[in-house]
């Protein structure tokens, strides 16, 4: 029940906002903030009551806070019964994202103060997005998952396209088409899977993700049956399906070369949407790769692990080099996201406990840190409507507290020990390095190559710090800017402090995450390796 409350509470609030008169529009943000705050409280409750000895991943018994109801049960005559369940549940792979989403949504709500136009539409869409994202992480029925997954797109399209920057329409359409391109093919695979899998209890075809993970549930000779080993267009069907699903999620992650929507979307999106994009949306990709791609097609995943690792390394280095050359602060951070999410792919592809844990940690950590970074850029942009690195210099003198937050965010992102990103990146790399000795999936040089990304990370962040924040104050906008560039306000601190604190706490006590996910990660690794 609690999962449904968590998921649909924002939807209720969205309805409330739609029904309230426009005269009250200044109060919409408080309704939103309150909703997200309640979500944070519920998520903390879930976190505290989450039993860390339950594995989940493949077995429904191992999931917690499960809600399993029949939803659509249409009799299709000779095709059997259409069995779509309302099936939600949490395990170690999804629980951290619930907490992450709640916190990021809270922060995004706080940063929505900057929105001034058409508040009713904005907050209603915002809350709709909230529901969709939470739903994605909770859904265990592929059909339900897909609905939530597509539901995310719609509000995002409008949020970027209506409240964005100068080239918002371009960015929104690019984002929308890119993502849709991936998910349309996902639909085909989903239907193919549906007709391949039988519920062992009812005998019907089913969309249940967990049953898709069990090779015994596939009908003999079905398209995606492991034993039948069917071919499609000369490629094994399961491999093809894996690749299609991977591309769908990889666009979200994003990986090189499917990343170009990200800088544009980030740059044009309003700050709260950037926060949500970087903080949560990218994690949907990583989560999908783990749960759906690796979960349902472990054989194909093993088969293509080498390539996934390579893509991870390329993303790390390519993103970092790109970040080094950017002149717009927000673009720089967007590319750093590409680089950091590369570690996720590398860690997952290693299929080791260290790598997968590191990848999970990286997603959580990057969630907080990128949200913080985008929030900070938003702070600057709100004040002077400019983000060019070269236009600022010596900000430390006039915005000392802001500089402290920027330094925390930068150093945490570049992997300074004591912050979560360090643990995450180190263990992603250790996993990748370990892989050859344990399961022989990734060669050792990939880990070494990936670690160069850490060096480049230091380079672009420190260079930015030096150029924008240190030295004597010199601003492109002169005295006018100097008066506009006030230090962070209380509301902004309210948003920044929790994220900085979380990054720090998770860095010092990584067991807060690792303990909760460990059993699931082990189960995940064993499942993929078919042990």
């Amino acid at each position, binding site marked *: 029940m609690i999962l449904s409350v968590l998921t649909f509470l924002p939807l209720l609030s969205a309805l409330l906002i739609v029904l309230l008169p426009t005269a009250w529009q200044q109060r919409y943000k408080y309704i939103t903030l309150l909703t997200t705050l309640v979500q944070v409280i519920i998520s903390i409750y879930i976190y505290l009551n989450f039993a860390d000895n339950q594995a989940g991943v493949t077995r429904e018994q191992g999931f917690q806070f499960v809600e399993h109801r029949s939803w659509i049960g249409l009799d299709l005559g000779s095709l059997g019964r259409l069995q779509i369940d309302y099936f939600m549940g949490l395990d170690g792979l999804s629980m951290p994202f619930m907490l992450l989403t709640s916190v990021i949504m809270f922060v995004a709500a706080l940063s929505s103060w900057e929105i001034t136009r058409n508040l009713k539409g904005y907050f209603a869409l915002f809350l709709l997005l909230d529901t969709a994202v939470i739903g994605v992480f909770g859904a265990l029925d592929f059909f339900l998952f897909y609905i939530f997954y597509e539901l995310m797109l719609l509000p995002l399209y409008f949020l970027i396209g209506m409240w964005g920057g100068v080239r918002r329409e371009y960015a929104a359409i*690019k984002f929308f*088409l*890119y993502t849709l391109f991936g998910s349309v093919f996902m639909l085909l695979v989903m239907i193919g899977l549906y007709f391949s899998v039988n519920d062992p209890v009812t005998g019907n075809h089913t969309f249940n993700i967990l049953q898709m993970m069990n090779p015994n549930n596939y009908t003999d000779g079905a398209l995606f049956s492991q034993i039948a080993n069917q071919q499609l267009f000369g490629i094994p069907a399961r491999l093809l399906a894996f690749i299609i699903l991977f591309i769908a999620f990889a666009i979200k992650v994003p990986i*090189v*070369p499917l*990343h*170009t*929507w990200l800088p544009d979307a980030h740059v044009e999106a309003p700050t709260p949407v950037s926060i949500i994009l970087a903080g949560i949306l990218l994690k949907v990709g990583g989560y999908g790769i783990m749960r759906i791609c690796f979960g349902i097609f472990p054989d194909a995943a093993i088969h293509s692990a080498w390539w996934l690792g390579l893509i991870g390394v390329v993303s790390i280095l*390519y993103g970092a*080099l*790109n970040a*080094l*050359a*950017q002149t717009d602060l927000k673009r720089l951070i967007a590319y750093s996201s590409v680089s950091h999410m590369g570690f996720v792919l590398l860690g997952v592809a290693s299929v*080791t*406990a*260290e790598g997968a*844990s590191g990848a999970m940690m990286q997603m959580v950590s990057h969630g907080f840190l990128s949200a913080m970074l985008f929030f900070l850029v938003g702070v600057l942009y709100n004040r002077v409507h400019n983000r060019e690195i070269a236009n600022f210099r*010596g900000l*430390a*003198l006039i915005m000392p507290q802001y500089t402290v937050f920027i330094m925390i965010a930068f*150093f945490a992102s570049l992997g*300074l*020990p*004591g912050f979560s990103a*360090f643990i995450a990146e*180190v*263990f992603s*790399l*250790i996993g990748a*390095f*370990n892989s*050859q*000795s344990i399961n022989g999936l990734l060669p*050792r040089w990939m*880990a*070494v190559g990936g*670690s*160069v990304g*850490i*060096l480049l990370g*230091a*380079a672009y962040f*420190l*260079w930015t*710090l*030096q150029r924008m*924040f*240190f*030295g*004597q104050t010199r601003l492109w906008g002169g005295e006018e800017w100097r008066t506009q560039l006030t230090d962070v306000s209380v509301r902004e601190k309210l948003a920044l402090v929790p994220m900085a604190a979380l990054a720090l706490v998770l860095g010092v*006590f*990584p*067991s807060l995450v*690792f*303990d909760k996910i*460990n059993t699931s*990660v*082990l189960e995940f*690794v064993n499942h993929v390796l078919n042990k």
Partner: protein
Amino acid sequence: MTLDTPVVLTDLAIAAAILPLLSFLVTGLFAKPGKGAFLAILTIAISFILSAIVFSQTWNRLDIHQQYVWFTIGNTSFYAGILLNNLGSLMLLLVSGIALLVHIYSTAYMKGDAYLHRYWAHLSLFCFSMLSMVIADNLLLIYIFWELVGFSSYLLIGFWFTRDAAVQANKKAFIVNRIGDLGILSGLMIVFTQFGTFDLQQLLGENGLIINAFVQNGEWINGVHTMPAVWLTVAGLGFVLGAIAKSAQFPLHVWLPDAMEGPTAVSSLIHAATMVAAGIFLLARLFPLFNDTVLLVIAITGTLTALMAATIALVQNDIKKVLAYSTISQLGFMMLAIGIGQYSAAIFHLTTHAFFKCLLFLSAGAVIHEMHHVKQVAPVDFDHQDIRNMGGLRKHMPVTFIAMLVASLALIGIPLTSGYLSKDAILISSFEWAALRGSWSKIIPVTALITSWLTAFYTARLFFKVFLGKNRWRILSPEGHIHEAPPAMRYPLVILALCSTFLIFSVNPLLYEDAWLLRGFPAVESLERINIIHTVIPALVNLLAILIIYFAWQQYARRDKTIFTNRGFFYDFAFNKWYIDNLYQAAIIKRVLNLAAFVRGFDRVIVDGMVHLLAKVGQALATLSAWLDTYIVDGLVNGVGILSKSIGNFARNMQTGKLQHYLLITLFIVITFFIVTYFSLAI
């Protein structure tokens, strides 16, 4: 409460490390500008006392190892813990002791700075990281604090963040150190993959995993795990790379001279005495991991660095730069000692060097402090750190003069100083080491010997130029007056001067083998004692050194001359720091930035271009289908419409409303009917 139980001792050690963190947090979060000194000094003082207790209880006793589960990944638990052995507790004492003195010194040196609270906070953070690093019991923790040390060094180098040079320098320092960190990370990954643990004692203990692992048929075997033997070398080189970066060895030494942009007290503590020694510390800790190839690399790097830095130091004019290069040079000696398997000598030199180099910097700081005052009343702007503007300070700053004298003698390695003992240990060991090997290996001790003479010269040059000769600053600033350093600066100098003599290290001022510190570490590679070396080398070194000093005195103190005026090739080569910075700028930084710019263009034009191309193709297809739709598909539909419309019109036009038309039509139809009926019957 007995102090020697392991639990109590580890608790004390943890407290010693954590207290500065407390100071950092409190000062960083709550202190008002200019405050924070009291808390910082108090915490470091307590740390020092605790460290002293820990040291007295653990030196030459059994190792104390206490650990707690930190987190678990998969089936592996990662621990956080304390390892107190001779090396750890010695470093603990050394770091906290010198840090305490530097803290006290800073109260006077940094007086009146607008951001003083930040200074204390950052200094406390550094102490926390450094103290934690030396007692950490596993590689992961060491790595963590290793980076934190680098981070606090970053903060302190850039303390005066409005100066461009300072923020350039701290960026450089951090990034160069990051290169080393990559090495350590690689080493870490290899060790973890091979042994499944980071624990130092499990790895390196009496019957540790590393000692039991062996190389066979090109495979590095450890019980269950195997990997190609080359990875053993790579792991070693990785850690060495880390040490090279942190200890400013060739070719990653470039950050240290630039780091002198930080406050001098910081340079003294971090960039001379403690942090830069962390590389040596790490290599000493991990000594059993290194195979012969790696050790040789260490030895060659050390020797080369020592020589290079000494030659550069000869011609520098900035007082701190000279000292910085001498630090690099001395660290090279320590690397050399490790490379020849005498890590006890390295640690010994590390300890003595910590004291006398700290003293040198603090004395230089006192001089700079006074010169700065002189500059403030001067009519012209001049570089107050340039030794060419100093001179004759002996009469004005007698205590500083004597402190600096002791430190310089120790740096040169004149008998009765601590430097003599430790430097001899390295030099003599290197000769003994070379004796066991081929003739080519003589290059290393001989280079070291030459370097120690160069050291004598540049030290003498620095010293004479600053304290003897004419008062050159009078010409620049006739109003200026130079005073003795204030008490808070003076007393640390005196204490450090005492520590730079042989007194606290050995009862015999001439024979390093009697030093208690040296005996605290097991001889890893036993060298055959060649007696003749033990007599000839010290005599040779010192005799020539004294001649060199005398020559320098003649030139700089009595005649007030400059020797290196002709700008020949060698001068330029040394003055421009062997052109290494220029090389990096041209060969690496520019290339990386160009690559980044290229990748950015690639991303824009090619990758995004592909997307746009796809969009264009889509648009073209859409236009095409729109045309088809309008003219073909819709044309069909419209055609049907038009047809029915015309039929409709035709039918409509028949409805004339004229009776006779209708009748005619009726008639026509009837006749048609009959005709059709008639013919159909016929058919």
